[in-house]
């Protein structure tokens, strides 16, 4: 361990790998994005030429700027270099006596501190704007990252070293691939990586438009070698974070006996991450600043779920797929709260119901019996065919002019835009999505606390309770009847799941009755909705409230 000739050599090799390889990843991202846009695009080696050219060029500095501005690119770059040096990339031994993850994560705070200050240094409005937004993002990023760290630490029973996490993942390989908490925290980590790299949908790295930019705004005044260091450091950061992902969540550490193989694997993972970024950036749009926080909050809840479910059993093989599907149901509901259009919501509902159907199918395989088949069949008929069709029908019947009317009404209701109220073109929400997510996190916490109190060991129970509670939450916060119906249906999905997760054997008759109940409920609600719309001319419960007051 610690300082020796071999560890120093290794650290140097890691620094070289990160620095020399990273421009290629950026080149690949740009190439793929160009192809998506039906352009030929520059060579994948173009970033090398860019950095080289910038390093050779002169620079222009603002007359107001101070030593902070001069120092920032170098410090930012040095932080990434230090990160590359202390990370156990090619071997479990680093130059530091321990490869503490917290220390590693806080390294990026150095860059953040200096970059935000350097934005303010030139007395331009853009720099301050970028720094201010960066601070907003980091206020969501750091707690979420802390949850991921907590998960990793508890998962590998109290260790705090990156090499210990790596060893733990490797030891559980490949079973860990189906371990839901592991997958959830990997998902959260990837979202956080996108945010930390200021990639879409968080920030648009290809623009200099003040409305959209965060990172580019802070470096607007930099030029020449300083800019080269910043661009290069940022590229290197991508490789460092991707490698960290590979080591922690993938079994790269199995290859540590042979550093060359580890090198190839990490290079591959970095490229894969680049490809993922390019794809996501090509099919997704940059979202508004305050909606960015919602996505980060989503990542936070995902990581929180992973952390909470650690003490619980998630089943083996088959059983872990069941648990995974339950998590998918929960996540689709969280996404449902964020999404803005009817079709997106319909899709999310279908995902929710499909996950339930698959889950019930797996259960039916392992526990064949009439009630299993009945549950499966009824879910498919009701939740995958009948209910979506009905809701789609209802949506279509809200004629186009009326939908447009809703948008216009919404757009001049100024107070709706103030605060953190989410802008929702068709259906507005009562509370902001951030508040809703906070409540959702609280509900999830509650379900886990209750499960712990009852000494339950199966993760399915708290998840099912969460699904039910969040279904109620959706009904509570969405004013429009269609959305409330969606919430009701997803809540019902949770109720269907309940006997499965508690392994209760409910008589077929009771189950059939419950089902009939749901069927009748939805039918009545849809019928009522039609009737209401005919007489009142709206389906927004707030407007209905106003009518009743008149």
């Amino acid at each position, binding site marked *: 361990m610690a300082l020796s000739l071999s560890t120093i050599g290794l650290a140097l090799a890691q620094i070289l790998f990160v620095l020399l390889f990273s421009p290629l990843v950026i080149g690949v991202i740009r190439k793929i994005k160009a192809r998506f846009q039906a352009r030929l695009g520059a060579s994948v080696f173009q970033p090398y030429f860019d950095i080289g050219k910038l390093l050779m060029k002169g620079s222009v500095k603002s007359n107001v700027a101070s030593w902070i501005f001069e120092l920032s690119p170098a410090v930012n770059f040095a932080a990434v270099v230090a990160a590359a040096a202390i990370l156990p990339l090619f071997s479990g031994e680093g130059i530091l006596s321990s490869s503490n993850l917290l220390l590693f994560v806080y390294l990026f705070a150095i860059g953040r501190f200096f970059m*935000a200050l350097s934005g303010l240094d030139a007395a331009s409005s853009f720099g301050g704007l970028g720094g*201010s937004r960066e601070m907003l993002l980091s206020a969501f990023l750091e707690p979420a990252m802390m949850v991921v760290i907590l998960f990793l630490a508890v998962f590998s029973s109290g260790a705090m070293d990156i090499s210990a996490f790596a060893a733990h993942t490797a030891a559980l390989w490949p079973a860990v691939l189906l371990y839901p908490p592991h997958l959830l925290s990997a998902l959260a980590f990837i979202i956080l990586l996108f945010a930390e790299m200021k990639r879409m949908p968080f920030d648009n790295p290809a623009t200099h438009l003040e409305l959209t930019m965060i990172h580019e705004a802070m470096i607007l005044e930099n030029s020449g070698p300083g800019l080269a260091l910043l661009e290069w450091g940022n590229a290197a950061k991508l490789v460092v974070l991707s490698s960290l992902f590979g080591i922690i969540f993938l079994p790269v550490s199995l290859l540590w006996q042979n550093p060359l193989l580890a090198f190839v694997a990490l290079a591959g993972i970095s490229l894969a991450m680049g490809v993922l970024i390019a794809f996501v950036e090509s099919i997704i749009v940059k979202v508004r600043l305050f909606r960015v926080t919602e996505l980060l909050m989503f990542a936070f809840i995902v990581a929180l779920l992973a952390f909470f479910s650690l003490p619980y059993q998630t089943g083996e093989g088959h059983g872990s797929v069941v648990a995974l599907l339950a998590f998918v149901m929960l996540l689709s509901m969280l996404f449902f709260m964020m999404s803005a259009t009817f079709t997106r919501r319909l899709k999310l509902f279908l995902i929710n119901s499909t996950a339930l159907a698959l889950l019930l199918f797996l259960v039916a395989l392992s526990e064949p019996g009439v009630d299993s088949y009945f549950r499966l069949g009824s879910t498919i008929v009701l939740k995958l065919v009948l209910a979506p069709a009905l809701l789609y029908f209802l949506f279509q019947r809200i004629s186009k002019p009326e939908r447009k009317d809703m948008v216009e009404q919404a757009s001049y209701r100024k107070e709706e835009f103030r605060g953190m109220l989410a802008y929702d073109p068709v259906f507005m929400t009562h509370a902001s999505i951030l508040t809703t997510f906070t409540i959702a996190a609280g509900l999830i916490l509650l379900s886990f606390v209750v499960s712990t109190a009852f000494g339950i060991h199966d993760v399915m129970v708290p998840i099912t309770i969460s699904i039910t509670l969040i279904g109620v939450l959706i009904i509570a916060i969405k004013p429009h009847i269609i959305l409330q119906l969606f919430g009701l249906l997803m809540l019902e999905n949770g109720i269907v799941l309940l006997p499965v997760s508690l392994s209760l054997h409910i008589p077929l008759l009771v189950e059939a009755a419950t089902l009939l109940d749901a069927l009748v409920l939805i039918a009545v609600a849809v019928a009522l909705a039609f009737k209401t719309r005919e007489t009142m001319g709206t389906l927004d419960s707030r407007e209905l409230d106003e009518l009743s007051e008149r």
Partner: protein
Amino acid sequence: MLFAFLMLAAGSALSLLLARSARAARLAGAAFCLVGSLAAALAAILPLLGNPVPVISLGVFPAIGRLYFEIDALSGFFALIVSFVSAIVSIYSFKYMEEYEEKGYNAGFYWSLLPLFILSMLAVVSSKNAALFMVSWEVMALSSYLLVTYEGRAEGVKNAGFIYLLIAHMGAAMLIAMFILLAGMSGSLDFAAFAGAKMPEIAASAIFVLALLGFGSKAGIIPLHIWLPQAHPQAPSGISALMSGVMLKVAVYGLIRVAFDFLGPFQPPLWWGLLVIAIGAVSALLGVLYALRQHDLKRMLAYHSIENIGIIFIGMGAALLFSTAGNPALAALALFAAMYHSLNHALFKSLLFMGAGAVIQATHTRDIEKMGGLVKLMPVTAVMFFVASYAISAVPPLNGFVSEWLTFQALISGANAGGYMQLVFGLVAISLALTSALALAAFVKVFGIVFLGIPRSEKVGQAKEVPGAMLLGMGLVAAACLAAGIFPALIMNMAAPALLSIGFNDPSVAYSQAASLPMFGLFSLLLVFAVLAILAVSALGKAFRAKHETRITWDCGYYEGTPRMQYTASGFSMPLMRVFGKLTNPIESKHHGGDFFEEFIYLPLYRAYASVSIRLNFLQTGQLSDYLLYLMITLIGVLLYALL
């Protein structure tokens, strides 16, 4: 030790005598303060190195027992904090207070109070008798009150001082009640007797709660923090540095002494730890959120004190929880983190207040929206303030990071325990992560708005660098910040005897987590080396390259930017406030920067109190015979009670 006490007392007396000549009083006061503080620092280090320090005994008295001062290791650790910062502040104040003399304030008064204040803080941490402790505590409260109200002609000072005095006395009342309980249980007022006393759980809990209220009100935990953001900004900056940096730590010392020493043998119930850690998490988060809203430089720093006290309380709460769980090793780690953070906060917060004092003296305003561009006008102060901001933002490799890292290590280890503890420690760690992200934002804002860009007002544009003595004082603290960040093992060695003295006596297990501390030195070296290498390369490159120009900031093609085109402090924190603002003000406040607790808890409380008082006004007739009647009724009541 005795020498230190005598020097400080002499300084106090001499300055008062020399009050006629401001200069002489200042010289005498500063010299005696410096020598006294340095002597005290020496006396404080000795027990930490394992050498016992002679006891100063004032003799044995009937009823109150033996009055004596003794610096054991725990006292030594905190006495070191007190004396180091005090020495710095005496250097700093020497030049800083000149301005007040010009305004016509009495120098003799200040320079006799300053040594008294330092003396009383040293006495609090070293007295080993409850009566002596309370006397020192009260002298500390009164001398700091007088120092807060020193600038008596300025607006708001009297009010702030009064609130401070009020809360200080409420706290003192709690402490007296606590000591009475302790004395009742142990039959003596001697600290040594307290530590061994056996008591039922209810008594221990009562003592604990009283200590939490008494010391907590001094430390400024939420919701007892209300005096802090009012009093700290009003005091002269040297005093703000002492109060925020040191006096709060004296309260922390008191709580550690009671909770871990006096009640040490007692297995703490679960709710003690939960209460303390919850108070810590809430104080930290709300403290930083309130700080983000402030535009008054010193008021903002005062709110950050609440935040940091919160972090210290998180450490102490975690230590209590670990004690409950029967895990002394982790308890020691958590307590060490709290003590380390106490030291660090003393360093960087006093540096920040001194830097703020320098800025205020140079610009004559406390409103950061009027500042800007000071990095060019006051380059050395800017570097000092930068070091302190960097440290308090918990960015590696400075000291703030190390103690926060240790706190996180303790919390994460706690989360590993499973069950409910996983949730408790997990949630606290998450809230601490949020706090630290917000603190970074707050200090980027402060440093960026105050020192960078261009001056936002004419007065600020004429600011000049402050005199050398003030810079020297700040420089020493900045160096200490660096040292405490790069060599945490040193601090560990200092804190180890202190931990040992309160029963955490298994160093081999206790510091398993802290064992990786030396890596910070190597890590810092790596970082500094990398920065230097890159700078060297780019400097080398510059010599060869064609053009390096200095032009005006890009302004979208208009004319040169005006100060008003810069980002403002409120603009900078606006996105954060938009998201988190509701937490600081669940009910919409009427004025900007208002404190929820002040407006919606204390004010209604006061109004209720006032209205009840007015209703009871009829009792105060002013007639002697009526009062005699009251006396008689009371007497009869007491007699009846005795009869029953």
